[in-house]
């Protein structure tokens, strides 16, 4: 006799509608939650995995290109003595190839195994692979201000420990033929993103007043924000032929 109960005209029953609505809202919420968790995992973990892989690739390519160029470079580098100021020919050399890695950076303060490639340019795409050299600034070891930007968070967290840098810390860079040791003299200084003077040849707000062979590193501040920048400055305190080992922690 149940079939005798006719559905009231063509109307759907309200409890069915309600159930459908509740289920749909729940599914949308679950989906949104999953998306957010996935995105956080992407930003915190996956960009790091990709950045490490890209950095390794850049370093391998860099070392391959150095190995290919080694036969000419090695004899020239051999007589290089302890730590004379670098050859004054450097400023006349052409700019680095855009988008390509040309050096590797070691910062003992960031850990003994910390090494990153330095690429020419500061585009967001390049900074995913390593550190970026401000293309308008000086070449390695040249008179002027060799300026480098890097991520503090995400994309491998290269400059995560940036605030721990102190005057006296060393930043060691190596290009095809030479090790360059820069020693931090000023910073970390918190400044505004528009403060482009910090990468001037004689950086503004730095302890330097006369032209010299300087280094500037920049990253973002606060750690997860972009309202400010953190800056340190250093000056060249030594060079060494690339054939020799990495400069020791105490060489000045």
């Amino acid at each position: 006799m149940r079939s005798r109960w006719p559905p009231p005209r063509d109307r759907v029953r309200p409890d069915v509608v309600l159930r459908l609505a509740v289920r749909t809202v729940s599914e949308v919420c679950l989906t949104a939650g999953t998306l957010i968790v996935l995105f956080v995992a992407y930003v915190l973990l996956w960009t790091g995995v990709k950045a490490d892989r890209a950095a390794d690739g850049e370093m391998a390519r860099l070392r391959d290109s150095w190995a290919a160029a080694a036969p000419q470079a090695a004899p020239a580098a051999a007589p290089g003595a302890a730590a004379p100021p670098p050859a004054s020919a450097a400023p006349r050399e052409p700019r680095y190839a855009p988008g390509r890695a040309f050096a590797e950076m070691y910062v003992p303060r960031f850990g003994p195994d910390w090494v990153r490639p330095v690429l020419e340019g500061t585009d967001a795409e390049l900074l995913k692979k390593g550190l970026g050299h401000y293309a308008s600034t000086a070449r390695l070891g040249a008179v002027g201000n060799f300026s480098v930007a890097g991520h503090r968070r995400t994309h491998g967290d290269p400059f995560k420990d940036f605030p721990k840098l102190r005057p006296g810390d060393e930043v060691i860079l190596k290009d095809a033929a030479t090790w360059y040791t820069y020693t931090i003299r000023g910073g970390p200084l918190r400044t505004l993103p528009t403060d482009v003077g910090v990468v001037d040849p004689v950086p503004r707000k730095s302890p330097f007043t006369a032209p010299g062979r300087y280094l500037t590193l920049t990253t973002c501040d606060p750690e997860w924000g972009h309202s400010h920048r953190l800056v340190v400055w250093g000056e060249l305190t030594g060079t060494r032929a690339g054939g020799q080992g990495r400069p020791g922690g105490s060489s000045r």
Partner: protein
Amino acid sequence: MYGWIWRHLPGNAWVRALISLVLVLAVVFVLFQYVFPWAEPLLPFNDVTVDEGSGATP
């Protein structure tokens, strides 16, 4: 929505579960490969240089 997808998948429960898994992996792949890289620069972690707005160096 998920129930609707499940009902429209072919095969028995095992086949449907397998297809669902493949679909989930495909969605995650598309998200990680295309959607998230697009969305990530909208967050503030990318600004690490001091030339914002000056146009001196991109």
